[in-house]
């Protein structure tokens, strides 16, 4: 994340990064406090005075067979499956089925990945 911030700042010719908005997909099941702490420590290490804002994007699946939309419910997964989805969200396809038609053919519509939604800085 910090590397990506540096990369964007360089591309935009920013002297200082002031604010970074980060979106976190629910499927990543990231421990937000641990993530905030790590970013805070790393940004201090790099002498960055940045305000990080975080937003969790709820995960949603869409069945390719019947069109059903449904939300992610981590309680439907065993602990080891939750851990696997946390590391590689796509393995949700190994554990989940459309609750309406039982198809394994579904799309992760939203709620996967961690990305920089916006970044503000000074030239």
């Amino acid at each position, binding site marked *: 994340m910090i590397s990506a911030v540096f990369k964007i700042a360089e591309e935009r010719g920013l002297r200082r990064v002031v604010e970074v908005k980060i979106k976190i997909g629910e499927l990543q099941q990231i421990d937000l406090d641990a993530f905030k702490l790590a970013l805070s420590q790393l940004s201090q290490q790099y002498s960055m005075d940045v305000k990080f804002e975080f937003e969790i994007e709820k995960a949603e699946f869409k069945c390719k067979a019947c069109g059903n939309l449904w939300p992610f419910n981590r309680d439907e997964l065993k602990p080891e499956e939750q851990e696997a989805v946390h590391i590689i969200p796509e393995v949700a396809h*190994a554990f989940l089925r459309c609750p309406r038609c039982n198809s394994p*053919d579904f799309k992760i519509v939203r709620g996967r990945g961690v990305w920089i939604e916006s970044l503000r800085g000074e030239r």
Partner: protein
Amino acid sequence: MLDPRLSVIDERLSRVKRIMAISSGKGGVGKSLIAAVSALILARRGFKAGLLDLDFTNPSSSVILGARSLYPVEDRGMVPPKISGVEYISITFFAGDEPSPLRGEDVTNAFVEILALVRWSPLDYLILDTPPGLGDLLLDLLRLIKRLSFLVVTTPSRLSLETVRKLILLLRSVKAPIIGVIENMLMDSSQSLGEEIKKLDAAFLGSIPLDPGVEKALGDPEKLLETKFAEKLSEILNAIQ
């Protein structure tokens, strides 16, 4: 706006000296076996070797290596476990024995996730076991991994050779380095397509006879290394190492 995973892939692979993708246009030609046993041979020779199984929907390297109950350690990313001296990552660590039906976008996302997460040691060789064909994973390999060279596998079948011809054409068109072509599962030397392979725009590295002993050795790295298959593959690796 920006996927931070893409910023870290080069860094994650920066300590790997050589990255080789074992590829073919066709399935069932022995890519996974060549990939896994190559990694074992290189590790046996004292090189630091890694194996990454990228055939997400049909992973078989775990069966070849007998890799059960392995799991990476989460530490500033994902530290791969070792099997017989080989650092090893497969989607089977996560999906277990369940089928993992993935469409192209999911394949790309899983691939990027793994590249961004896995903390390989300083390796001499990272062997990539790739799915067959010219689909999403091949295109992602070409897009995301610099310093990648291809070891192409065919069988002595014109069906296989035709798909390999197209693969080589594609790789040449994007200036991807090709180490050469291995003819695998040769049952009778008179049936070798070596002369046909030599007409392709890639080096012919040799033929590996079909070895019935491999089946019994599956799941046991030590036994695999004692097969005639491994002996012949080892000779080929000598030439390209």
